[in-house]
């Protein structure tokens, strides 16, 4: 499962929240693609959501979008190592480095992808589109609790997203407080069941 989106939208928080819920349900591992440090992987280790050896950090050579889309070799190496450890039946979350609205995963690397936006990044982002917004398998609009503080119109953002995405799903979350995470989890598990059938 690829999880992408702009810097600071809540990708790592979503990965941590999903790990908390998934770890007793399925064999689980995480790949992080950090721009500069292993900070995201370290955050997950410090939160204690997974064994340290079930989290791998990939270097992206200044180009996080290249590592998840054009040249997925390093990510595939990491995914295959983890698959050997947890078995083909497990779930591997691949978190991209924070990038821009055009950065999406290659389906040579992942089976499904979630794109994470946040309301504080501006409520016009969903309208502006880009492949992450329009084509991801699930669009998550995060930090909806901040909407009144930043003058964002969540309803408008969600309807804009639905307008450009057709029948593809959109979910509103506040990952920090847990709001909406169970819905993301339910979607993930139903997609997993579909991909296995």
């Amino acid at each position, binding site marked *: 499962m690829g999880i992408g989106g702009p810097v600071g939208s809540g990708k790592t928080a979503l990965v941590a929240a999903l790990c908390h819920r998934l770890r007793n349900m399925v064999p689980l591992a995480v790949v992080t693609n950090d721009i500069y440090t292993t900070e995201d992987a370290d955050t997950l280790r410090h939160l204690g959501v997974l064994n340290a050896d079930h989290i791998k950090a990939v*270097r992206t050579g200044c180009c996080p979008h290249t590592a998840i889309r054009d040249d997925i070799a390093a990510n595939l190496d990491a995914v295959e190592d983890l698959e050997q450890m947890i078995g083909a039946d497990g779930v591997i979350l691949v978190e991209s480095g924070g990038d821009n609205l055009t950065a999406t995963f290659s389906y040579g690397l992942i089976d499904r992808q979630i794109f994470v936006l946040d309301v504080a990044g501006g409520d016009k982002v969903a309208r502006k589109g880009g492949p992450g917004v329009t084509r991801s398998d699930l669009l998550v609009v995060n930090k909806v609790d901040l909407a009144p503080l930043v003058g964002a119109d969540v309803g408008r953002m969600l309807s804009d997203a639905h307008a450009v995405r057709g029948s593809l799903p959109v979910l509103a979350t506040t990952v920090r407080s847990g709001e909406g995470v169970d819905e993301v989890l339910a979607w993930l598990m139903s997609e997993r069941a579909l991909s296995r059938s």
Partner: protein
Amino acid sequence: MVLSDGRFPSGAHAYSSGMEQSIAWHDVTGLASLEEFVAGRVATTGAMAAQVAAAASTLMTAATAPQQTIGLDALDSAVDARMASAASRAASRQQGHSWLRGARAVWPAELASASPLLMDRHAWVTLGAATAILGIDPQDAACLALHDLVSTLVWSAVRLLGLDPFEAAGILAGTLAGVETETRALAAEAVPATEALCLGRVETEWISWLAAPLSDLGAEAHAARAERLFAS
């Protein structure tokens, strides 16, 4: 041409072959010092890369199957012995692994049966052997290895220092043009020098021992850093 295209998904984009650490140490600060650094690496590790790629290529066309295994194992050990840094050795094997993944996916019919023989080897060994199976001769394999080395150094410097990419491409082209004759000569000499290996005798002393010790130290320092963008 497909294999030498920077857009070929070989995993190479995330490697700097020591450039990131050289920049951190202020050894490379701009175009002039980049050109000097590249010349130094070409003259040292570049010579070994050309010879090893050409030898691996020769083995795949001139030796029987059991001797190919003995010969590639010997070349692998020869590279181990010439790379003082454990981090560099690990990066080289990882690059070989990722490169082979790309090549196998593109040419499955040609490379499938040889894949077990080519796996988990140093990048120059894998490149030389796999390209031989694809019909590329030892001299061209050596040139491919040099192209890979120099473009890894040059393009990682462009990303890290914000260098003018046209000037950098000029350094890439100029360096490769300047070294091509010597690279082809090294490869041509490697073909008869590999004769013993083709007969199953482990003779690799003829492979260049020239090294870049500061780069070896840099590779170790780089691997210990938390904040880095490149895998090597």
